C-alpha cells in the first residue's frame, strides 16, 4: 500500500539531529535520536523536548460551544475556569472511548481540544455530526506545531515561573509567541508549547539551546507507560470503557453525556475486567497482545528504564486486578511471572538513593 506520510514543520531538524524516523499514525516522526534510554533518563532527571506536532487541534467556538462539549465529553467543563485545561474523554453511545484529549477553556465561548493524531479525523467528524446551532467546530491542526518540554528542570530551563498543573497562558519563549500549557504525557513537570507552524523551527532551536535534550516517540512511550497514562488504540479504545480502564475519575456521571447510562451501569455492577499495571518478576519484556493465563491480555508492554524491568498494562478479570496478585504472561510460548502493582508503576520517590 502506497501512502504518503505527513511531516511536521520540524522534520528537517530531526533528520539533521540524526533521528531515526518512523511512520506513526500517518506521520513520519522521530522515534529516537541518541537512544530511547538516555532520552528517557533526560526527562526523568533534567529536561527533554518532544515534537508532538502530529497531534490534532480542534477548535469549538460559539455561544453554545460549552453546551455541545458538555454533552460529548465525559469530564465536567464546569469544573474549569478560563485559562485552565482538563483531561477528558470523547465517548460513544456504548460508553466506549473514541479518544482521550485535553480541553482548553480559551474564553467563555471558545474551546481548544488537543487530540491524538490517529483520531484527529474521526474526532472532527464526530463533533461535526453532533454540532448544534451556535457551535462551530474547526480543524486547525495544520496551522500549529506542538512542542512538549518535560522534566524536573523544564520550567527553569525555559525561564518560566511555576504554574499550577493544567493551567495555560499566552506567552513568549525567547521572543517566540506561543501558548504555554502546564500539561504533558511523561509524569514529570513540564509544558506543552502550541506555536504557529511557521515559528516552530525557531522555537525548537531556542528550546534545545536552553538545554532540553531532543526526545523521540520511543521515550515518550516508555515515560507514559511508567506512570500508567493510557495510550489510545492500545489501552483504551472505542470497545473499552472508562470505568474498566480506571478512568472513572474523568467521568462526571452526574451530568448527561454520550454513553453515560452505560458507564453508570458498569460502575454500579462493577466492571468484569480492569486495566491493571504490572511489573515482571521473571526476566522478560511483555508486549501488546500477549495472553495472560489468569485471563485477559497485555495492552501495553515495554522495558522500564527506571526500574530496569519489563512493565505493562493489561486488562485482567476484576478479581485478578488487585495489587500483589501474581499474573502469568505467555511470552511467545514461555510462561513468565509478573505482579500487579498499584499505579503508577514509577514514582519519583522510588528513585534509588
Amino acid at each position, binding site marked *: 500500500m502506497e501512502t504518503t506520510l505527513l511531516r511536521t514543520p520540524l522534520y528537517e531538524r530531526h533528520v539533521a539531529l540524526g533521528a531515526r524516523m518512523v511512520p506513526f499514525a500517518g506521520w513520519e516522526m522521530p*522515534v*529516537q535520536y541518541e*537512544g*530511547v*534510554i538516555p532520552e528517557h533518563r533526560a526527562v526523568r532527571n533534567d529536561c527533554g523536548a518532544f515534537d508532538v506536532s502530529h497531534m490534532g487541534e480542534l477548535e469549538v467556538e460559539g455561544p453554545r460551544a460549552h453546551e455541545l462539549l458538555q454533552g460529548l465529553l465525559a469530564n465536567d467543563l464546569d469544573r474549569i475556569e478560563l485559562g485552565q485545561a482538563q483531561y477528558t474523554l470523547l465517548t460513544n453511545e456504548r460508553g466506549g472511548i473514541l479518544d482521550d484529549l485535553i480541553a482548553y477553556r480559551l474564553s467563555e465561548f471558545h474551546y481548544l481540544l488537543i487530540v491524538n493524531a490517529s483520531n484527529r479525523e474521526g474526532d472532527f467528524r464526530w463533533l461535526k455530526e453532533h454540532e448544534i446551532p451556535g457551535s462551530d467546530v474547526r480543524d486547525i491542526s495544520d496551522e500549529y506545531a506542538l512542542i512538549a518540554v518535560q522534566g524536573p528542570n523544564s520550567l527553569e530551563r525555559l525561564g518560566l515561573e511555576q504554574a499550577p498543573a493544567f493551567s495555560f497562558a499566552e506567552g513568549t519563549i525567547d521572543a517566540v509567541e506561543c501558548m504555554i500549557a502546564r500539561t504533558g504525557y511523561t509524569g514529570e513537570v513540564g509544558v506543552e508549547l502550541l506555536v504557529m507552524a511557521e515559528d516552530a523551527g525557531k522555537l525548537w532551536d531556542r528550546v534545545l539551546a536552553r538545554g532540553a535534550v531532543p526526545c523521540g516517540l*520511543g521515550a515518550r512511550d*516508555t515515560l507514559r507507560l511508567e506512570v500508567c497514562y493510557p495510550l489510545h488504540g492500545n489501552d483504551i479504545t472505542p470497545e473499552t470503557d472508562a470505568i474498566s480502564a480506571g478512568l472513572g475519575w474523568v467521568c462526571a456521571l452526574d451530568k448527561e453525556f454520550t454513553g453515560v447510562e452505560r458507564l453508570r451501569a458498569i460502575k454500579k455492577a462493577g466492571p468484569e475486567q480492569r486495566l491493571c499495571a504490572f511489573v515482571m518478576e521473571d*526476566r*522478560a*519484556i511483555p*508486549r501488546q497482545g500477549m495472553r495472560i493465563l489468569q485471563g485477559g491480555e497485555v495492552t501495553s508492554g*515495554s*522495558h522500564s*528504564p527506571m526500574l530496569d524491568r*519489563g512493565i505493562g498494562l493489561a486488562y485482567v478479570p476484576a478479581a485478578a486486578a488487585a495489587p500483589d496478585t501474581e499474573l502469568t504472561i505467555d511470552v*511467545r510460548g*514461555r510462561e513468565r511471572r509478573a505482579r500487579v502493582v498499584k499505579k503508577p508503576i514509577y514514582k519519583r520517590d522510588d528513585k534509588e538513593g
Partner: protein
Amino acid sequence: MPAPESYPNDVRYHREHDWVRIEDGEAVFGITWFAQDRLGELVHFEPPGDGISLSKDASYGEVESVKAVSDVIAPLSGDLLEVNQKVVDAPETINDDPYGEGWLVRVTLTDPTELEALMDAAEYERFVADQ
C-alpha cells in the same frame, strides 16, 4: 557507550546479521554491529535452554530492544556448550562490544564444512551497504 561501526576480519558473517568466530575447534556466536545498531539499546537476551542443538539458519534465542524483538539465527550448526551469562545479566554489553564481551553462546560445531557458505568481512560490509 555504543561501539563504533566495525566488521572485524577474524569472524565470518551470516546474512541474518550474525557472526561466528572459530576458536580451537569450538565456535562462538554473536550478532553484528549492524544488527545491534538496527535494534537500538538491547534490554533482554533470551538464551537457548541447556544442552540444546543449534541448526544453521534457525533461531536459537531472542534479543530485545525497548521497541523490538528479534530472533537470533545460528550461523552454523552445533551443540550448545555455554551461554554468556554477562549478556543475560547486562544485555547492553552487546551494544558496547558486539564482537567481544557481547558474544552470545559457545558451541561445538557439528558440521564445520558449513563455514564455506558464510561471508567474510569484505563481503558482509558490501551486503550491509545494500540494506
